[in-house]
């Protein structure tokens, strides 16, 4: 019995090593790696995000037969939202396909940081939509990193502008008190210098309060907040910290419509656990939710009606995380399309796709043609601007659905750009990078 089971396990290992060694052959196809996370603490958001992304890729294949006749292929790899597993997935998928991986979209700050050096070495771009290094906006120092649509710093700026709007003008910020309740991690502290710069500019008082990760307990922080009597609370939360914060705010009687959260705190997963307490709560957003967009309806008609959808639970279609995934798909596919315009209709390598990412032009008209009008702000990237937009909007949870609470708000680049420049220069110096000359790039 014992030896039998041993034999069996040895066999299993041998079989799997065999699959490790065997490469797969591809025909003229563009390969997109999907490093998803569908188990563990963040499975709920991860499944929907990558479900939406895969659905969009399949939609493009089903409707147009791929991009410019080149079929899009993909392979998933489970990262569990862990850095080391992410690195493993990166290494596993980077050389797959005819011309290697097109680009990676990890949806995780940690994994993105951990693969940054490798990616620049391998010339594969990293797409970080809404998150990642804010200073990577400077494409001259970070040629392979794309914090598309909006970086954390742009969002922090938008939050201040939004609060100004609510108060009736930026001049009204003077003398006000804003608490920055942040997750006790590198991620949580990332926006502090930006918020401080704005506090100086507009003359409001900024109080930083830390919530120890993971943030299940926030009672003392909220008692402190009640004592401080702030006008607004900026919530830089992540994971379970969001619902716990909303609950704790209700407990001390802090009005939820005075909480302005980062977009990580702005999905259904963040408010449903908080139940009734979440009514009125406000969070940032870069991709609108809902099934009203033609592209989402197309996915329902073309894929789900024929049983080809990626998600087993169709109720998830149109949720914030799902739509973020579709947007991710649109950006990635459009980058390939743009790159094909320069390099020809063939399987492109990472460096060629990088050129596409750097020359994205998703104007409102183009978005409309894609069936995603006003789903995201217009995005136009260049060598000097890898973010391409910086616009953020705010949504309010009414107990059942997200309702728009503002239009697209522009970042205050007069404050942000010097910070981005300083941070990018520091990175370049540390790493010994000679920045590209963006005026020479076409």
């Amino acid at each position, binding site marked *: 019995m014992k030896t039998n089971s041993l034999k069996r396990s040895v066999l299993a290992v041998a079989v799997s090593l065999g699959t490790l060694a065997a490469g797969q052959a591809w025909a003229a196809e563009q390969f997109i790696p999907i490093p998803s996370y*569908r*188990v*563990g*603490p*963040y*499975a*709920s958001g991860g*499944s929907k995000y990558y479900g939406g992304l895969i659905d969009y890729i399949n939609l493009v294949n089903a409707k147009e037969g791929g991009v410019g006749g080149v079929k899009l292929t993909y392979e998933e790899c489970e990262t569990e939202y862990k850095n080391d597993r992410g690195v493993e997935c990166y290494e596993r998928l980077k050389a797959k396909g005819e011309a290697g991986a097109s680009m990676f979209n990890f949806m995780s700050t940690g994994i993105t940081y951990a693969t940054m050096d490798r990616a620049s070495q391998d010339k594969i771009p990293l797409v970080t939509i809404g998150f990642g290094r804010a200073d990577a906006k400077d494409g001259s120092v970070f040629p392979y990193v794309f914090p598309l649509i909006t970086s954390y710093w742009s969002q922090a700026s938008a939050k201040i502008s939004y609060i100004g709007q609510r108060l009736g003008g930026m001049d009204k910020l003077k003398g006000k008190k804003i608490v920055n309740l942040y997750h*006790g991690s590198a991620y949580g502290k990332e926006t502090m210098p930006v918020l401080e710069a704005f506090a100086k500019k507009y003359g409001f008082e900024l109080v930083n*309060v*830390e*919530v*120890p*990760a*993971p943030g*299940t*307990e926030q*009672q*003392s*922080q909220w*008692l*402190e907040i009640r*004592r401080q009597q702030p006008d607004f609370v900026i919530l830089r939360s992540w*994971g*379970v910290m969001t*619902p*716990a914060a909303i*609950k704790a705010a*209700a*407990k*001390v*009687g802090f009005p939820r419509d005075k909480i302005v959260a980062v977009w990580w705190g702005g999905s*259904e*997963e963040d408010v*449903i*656990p*908080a*139940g*009734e*307490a979440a009514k009125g709560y406000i969070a940032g957003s870069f991709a609108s939710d809902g099934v009203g967009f033609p592209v989402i309806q197309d996915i329902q008609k073309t894929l789900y009606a024929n049983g080809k959808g990626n998600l087993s*639970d169709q109720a998830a279609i149109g949720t914030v995380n799902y739509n973020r995934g579709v947007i991710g798909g649109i950006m990635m596919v459009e980058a390939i399309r743009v790159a094909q315009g320069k390099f020809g209709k063939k399987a492109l390598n990472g460096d060629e796709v990088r050129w596409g990412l750097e020359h994205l032009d998703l104007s409102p008209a183009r978005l409309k043609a894609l069936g995603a009008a006003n789903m995201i702000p217009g995005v136009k990237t260049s060598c000097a601007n890898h973010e391409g937009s910086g616009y953020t909007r705010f949504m309010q949870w009414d107990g059942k659905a997200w309702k728009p609470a503002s239009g697209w708000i522009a970042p205050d680049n007069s404050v942000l750009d010097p910070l981005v420049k300083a941070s990018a220069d520091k990175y370049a110096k540390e790493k010994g990078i000679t920045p590209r000359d963006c005026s020479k790039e076409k």
Partner: protein
Amino acid sequence: MQFFIEVMVGGLLAGVMYSLVALGFVLIYKASGVFNFAQGALVLFAALTFVSIEKMGVPFWIALAITLGIMVLMGVAIERIVLRRLVNQPPISLFMATIGLSFFIEGLAQTVWGTEVHGLELGITDEPFDVMGVFISKFDLFAATLSGVLVAGLALFFQKTKLGRALRAVADDHQAALSVGIPLKHIWAIVWAVAGFVALVAGMLWGSRLGVQFALTLVVLKALPVLILGGFTSVPGAIVGGLIVGAGEKLAEVYLGPFIGGGIENWFPYMLALVFLLVRPEGLFGERHIERV
């Protein structure tokens, strides 16, 4: 002063919530000497099962009964499939087995019930009420009362009933207990079933606080310092430990935090427990072992 009282009361009440999770550990440790790492997974599984059944349209109490049934079955299954085969193995192997178990249960929970997050309303609004200017949460008070009743019941059960004494005998020495005719297998099945029940209560209360989602497994981290403070083997110890940890960490965060930079709640309870342990290495209420050569 008023603020001080408010922080302290809030801390004490939060501490009881920690005790509730710690209780699950104490039960298993007391009866089988196993440090049950899977307790957090059980809490998640119980809460997720309950919410999912209720979402199907089953009334509250029936859903609760069904979930309890499932948890008991699960406890028995764990004993049958895992622990029975590991009788008399070193504690560290048993500990590891429960870790394997926690992976399994977490995977199972998400396979069966999906990864979706849920809200859970127990019908007790979490609005504060005012006692001479001090805000006290209704929900916390309810949770504290419930935990108090649970602990009192369990303490009586362990001290006064025959079964309770048998449990303690088993914990002390498996083989000796077997040799005096205590049915080890039944005892373990019972205690795992009770731990399943405690997990359900903890899952409901924590679930209504954080929402029913994977992060429920993280509440274990709050229970561990309670556990070492109160002692692994003492049911009342879990409560007292919880109170000390709860009040201590909140007061430290508010009054000590500003001086050393805040966010100290994660490690402060452990340091506190460490200090207590240096004085009493078996925890406040743990059983003292005399070492002989």
